[in-house]
């Protein structure tokens, strides 16, 4: 018999669990990402993971909170590909804020409304701090020369956006720059104070967005340059189109061999590679197949003849089998249509692969970019090979053997001669377990650049924005205290704690970046905030912890805002949850387990 069980959460276990789970994020903030081992005690399998998303992915979520956190982080990751560490860290920090407020007897609705107000303050700070990237594009292609130094468009545009304030800021910057003493790391520092004329270059923005993944970001910059070179004639296209980037993971090569090449790179087996070598430097005719290429594959929703029985009037021995028949048919069709290359989104039948190799037709499976090839070659994707006809076949594809690894696989480049901006980032490593992390890092960097261009704005990174939030949250808290003690007695407390959680965040970033202890970091941040107070203002440009020659660090506006909001959503959901209802509980056992009540 099945029923429901209710678990009461008097002690706000949910928030405590969230706080504990968020511990994963502590070391994943800042530029120095550390790897973690996730080990399964039972199977003794282990995984090397490089981000907190991957940690969550490889953990089995047994509790409701874990599932909720995983769902939130995954949803964030799907859209933004970066910022999950920030989300998780702040969810943990704010859950501790909520717990402390509860301990102080603040009622739940007050916590919710005060934290919402705090979030509004922070979002206003984001709006104020954000600097425009307008005009950032790809500079004239000049190989891979380093980007010209200087802050360029970013600060200049801020100066225009709030003119008066900016001049004040400059003045202050000059004053405070004398205080600069500490160098923590190249990642925890403000920008150079020299204001130059805008010198648009995506590489500059990219540098500030690399967040320690310099090599991955170099690949992204390379990809962007390649894309803009490939679509020279089309001036309208964005400087970097993340939808036209794919990755190819190539084990067995040192990491320095990572590079970006135009078109799509696939890994092929020896016999396919042989055909590829045969086909190189020729303009090929291409056919595109959506789904698997095999005799038994049927489109989604097709179940065949239900309840059908086959009746034969003669023994079937003398005749070709169904598969054989299909193989012959497809082979001759491909030959008739003079197709040299078939790109398949699913799997390719081995038998057909063998046959076609003999006929120098290259079949490539698991290709994810059929649409791009369809757009540039005019080929029409079909589901069944038998659907292929003259007008379905596209032309102008080239195949080149990229690198012979002298192993079982060969990397082959497939590109179109048309104006396609499809590029492939080839990611290499000698350590197989690292490949996943490297690929994740590449995508994180790619999306950071993509989102920066999309938002047309950036936030000062390395904790600068958070510092400004701390300042404004504290200011708001002080004003609350002054304004009305009776009406909002809790507001100041909640806002104060929220500010503290940001200090916590900044010190975690600093500690991870600079190898200093969290306590030292706390002290430095507090010192900095006191300085701001004595100067009677805070500006994101104002940065005593600056090293002149080092470029600025930036964060994405949308990523940060969304991560904060989602973190707060998580805290609110758990804060307002007081019970867990477990359904379909088997009641044959005796009594309810501890802490559970059977309904």
């Amino acid at each position, binding site marked *: 018999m099945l029923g429901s069980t209710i678990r009461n959460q008097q002690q706000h276990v949910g928030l405590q669990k969230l706080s504990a789970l968020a511990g994963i994020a502590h070391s994943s903030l800042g530029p120095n990402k550390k790897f973690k081992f996730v080990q399964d005690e039972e199977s003794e399998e282990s995984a090397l993971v490089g981000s907190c998303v991957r940690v969550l992915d490889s953990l089995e979520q047994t509790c*409701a909170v874990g599932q909720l956190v995983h769902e939130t982080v995954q949803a964030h990751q799907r859209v933004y590909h970066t910022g999950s560490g920030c989300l998780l860290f702040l969810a943990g920090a704010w859950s501790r804020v909520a717990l402390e407020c509860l301990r102080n007897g603040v009622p739940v609705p007050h916590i919710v409304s005060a934290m919402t107000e705090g979030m509004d303050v922070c979002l206003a700070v984001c709006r104020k701090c954000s600097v425009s990237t307008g005009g950032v594009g790809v500079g004239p292609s000049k190989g891979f020369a380093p980007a010209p130094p200087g802050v360029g468009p970013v600060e200049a545009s801020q100066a225009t956006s709030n003119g008066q304030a900016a001049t004040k800021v400059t003045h202050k910057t000059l004053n405070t720059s004398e205080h600069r003493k500490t160098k923590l790391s190249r990642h925890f520092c403000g920008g150079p104070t020299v204001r130059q004329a805008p010198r648009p270059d995506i590489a500059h923005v990219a540098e500030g967005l690399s967040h320690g993944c310099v090599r991955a970001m170099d690949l992204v910059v390379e990809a962007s340059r390649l894309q803009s070179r490939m679509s020279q004639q089309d001036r309208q296209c964005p400087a970097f189109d993340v939808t036209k980037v794919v990755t190819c993971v190539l084990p067995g090569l040192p990491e320095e061999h990572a590079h970006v090449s135009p078109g799509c790179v696939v890994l092929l087996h020896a016999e396919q590679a042989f055909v590829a070598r045969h086909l190189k430097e020729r303009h090929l005719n291409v056919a595109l197949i959506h789904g698997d290429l095999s005799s038994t594959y049927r*489109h989604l929703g*097709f179940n065949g003849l239900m309840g059908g029985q086959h009746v034969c009037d003669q023994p079937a021995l003398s005749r070709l089998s169904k598969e054989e028949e299909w193989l012959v048919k497809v082979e001759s069709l491909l030959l008739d249509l003079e197709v040299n290359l078939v790109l398949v989104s699913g799997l390719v039948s081995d038998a057909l692969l063998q046959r076609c190799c003999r006929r120098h037709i290259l079949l490539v499976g698991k290709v994810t970019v059929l*649409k791009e090839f369809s757009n540039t070659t005019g080929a029409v994707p079909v589901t069944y090979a038998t659907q292929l006809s003259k007008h379905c076949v596209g032309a102008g594809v080239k195949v080149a053997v990229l690198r012979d690894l002298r192993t079982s696989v060969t990397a082959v480049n497939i590109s179109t001669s048309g104006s396609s901006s499809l590029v492939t980032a080839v990611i290499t490593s000698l350590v197989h377990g690292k490949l996943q992390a490297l690929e994740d890092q590449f995508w994180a960097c790619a999306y950071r650049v993509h989102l920066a261009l999309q938002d047309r704005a950036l936030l000062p990174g390395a904790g600068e924005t958070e510092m400004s939030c701390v300042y404004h949250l504290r200011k708001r808290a002080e004003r609350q205290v002054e304004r009305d003690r009776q009406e909002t007695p809790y507001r100041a407390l909640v806002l104060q704690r929220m500010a503290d959680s940001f200090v916590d965040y900044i010190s975690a970033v600093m500690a991870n970046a600079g190898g200093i202890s969290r306590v030292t970091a706390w002290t430095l941040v507090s010192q900095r905030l006191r300085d701001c107070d004595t100067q009677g203002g805070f500006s994101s440009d104002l940065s005593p912890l600056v090293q002149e020659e080092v470029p600025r660090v930036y964060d994405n506006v949308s990523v940060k805002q969304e991560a904060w909001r989602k973190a707060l959503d998580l805290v609110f959901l758990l804060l307002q949850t007081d019970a867990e209802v477990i359904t379909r509980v088997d009641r044959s056992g005796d009594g309810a387990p501890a802490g559970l009540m059977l309904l």
Partner: protein
Amino acid sequence: MSRLVQKSPSVCVDLPLDNSDVCHKLRLLGQLLSSCFGPTGRLKQVHNNIGGHVVTTSTSSVLLAAISSSQPLLNLIISSIRKHISRFSDCGLFAAFLCVALTEQAKQSGVRRNVVIGVNKHLLALCTRYLHQEDCWCKVELDFSSQNLITLARSVLSSKPGNMLTAKETLHISKLAVQAFLLTVPCNSTGTATLGKTVTVSVQGHSVLDSAVFPGLLVDMPDVFDQEGNQPSSPLCVGLFSVSLTGELSEVGDGIIEVHSGVDTHSQILDQLLEVGKQVVDDGVKLFVCQKVIHPVLQQYLRSHGVVVVERLGVNLMQPLAQLTGAQPVATLHTSIPATAYGKVKHLISRQFGSRTLLHLLPAEESEICTMVLCHRSETMLSELKVACQTTEHVLRLALREPLALLGGGCTETHLAAYIRHQGMHDISETASALECSHTECQRGVEAFCRSLESVAAALQHDGGNSLIDLTCAHHWTLPADEHSEDNLGRCGCGMMESSPSKKWSHLNSKYLDFCPAPVSRDSTVQPRVLDSFTAKVNALHVAVETANIALDVRYIIQDVN
């Protein structure tokens, strides 16, 4: 070989309400549901015991659908409330908690069960009569030209904290809900007017403020290789198929077909599909929609002739689409399609919401179909918001039939309790003689009923605050936990009254001298801030009282344990 197992005898429980286990579980159910009640209600995480999907909710429809009990008496209550929710969507928690409260109060009062049942019936009739009276002071008439509709919508939305909406977002969604509702009301129909339909499309990962309402339908674009052909001038001819066009024999049923080995059934059916395709193209169809899967070869054929193909529409969208386009869904392949089966759309627009590309079908003529695109940051909150929006739509529709609303925020409950207490005491002798019971018994019965109603109002408070009632209009007021004076209470639950030092108060759980509640002195500028659906609440009241009466009336529970 069959084996005979001796049946175990049925289990009979005498007077289930005297059983401590039943009482304990009833109290638990009451706590579970009352803690979800209202805008500051607590959420529940619902999941199964094998790590299934976690739903965070405080909505009665989601919560009650998930829970079941080992006690048949509780299941009786749960299923009765579920039935109410399926008919009215709203006031489920009110009904459930009132029912539990009535049962518990009746037990505590110590009055004979049959007397309690009689008193309950009598008082329910009294309530119903009062609520339908002209001079019922907890009722407002809904004026469709004023803000009332938005207030009604906002009250429903803000009573679900799982939505995680800010005040601004709540207002935005309330306006959208009213807009969508108004779009489904036919403007100039003669004869029987039928309401249209609002289709909800949810998009995850976007700001709530990106949500919008569109006239017409938004359907998923075929993700594979959409084509934005140059559209011919409007209107476009639409073919709608409910039969599967996947290329299999779906209409065979359970029979067996014997097929000769040499026969390729697949290609034969495909030929038939292509026949359909040919006819459709000849008939000038520009939009081809199928509820189920379309064979890729047919899709390719149609696309090559400039037809926009939409497959896997799903059964839910079939009826709205048929209504929008005027097309008759084709359910068979065996006859040629009559020209009357085709419908029309005015225009097609491709719209992008995050990762979702939707095809917007605009109606050729006036149509009562609209689509509400709901956006929210995460799946959990989005699904809660979706349920809340559906409830809102239902509540607004109910308001069309009965353009009335009850004051929210607990004011209706306290007001009704005060009225019943006064009126019930007034004709107590008649009631007592009609029920053949003593004066005192009858009095305690009335008190139990009123306390139950008041406990529902008090259940809106979850943070240790106190519930008060004013002794003139009998509205509901909240005194926060850290406040001890009654000087600064602000406004009452529904927002119609403002506190003043001259007002007299009583705590809800304390006795006060009964009085006839007066109407709020009408200041036309003051509008109620919280409104509840009249129809849903009156029905919920009926369901709660009648279910409680049944629960009180159960003498034996006989369970077949085999």
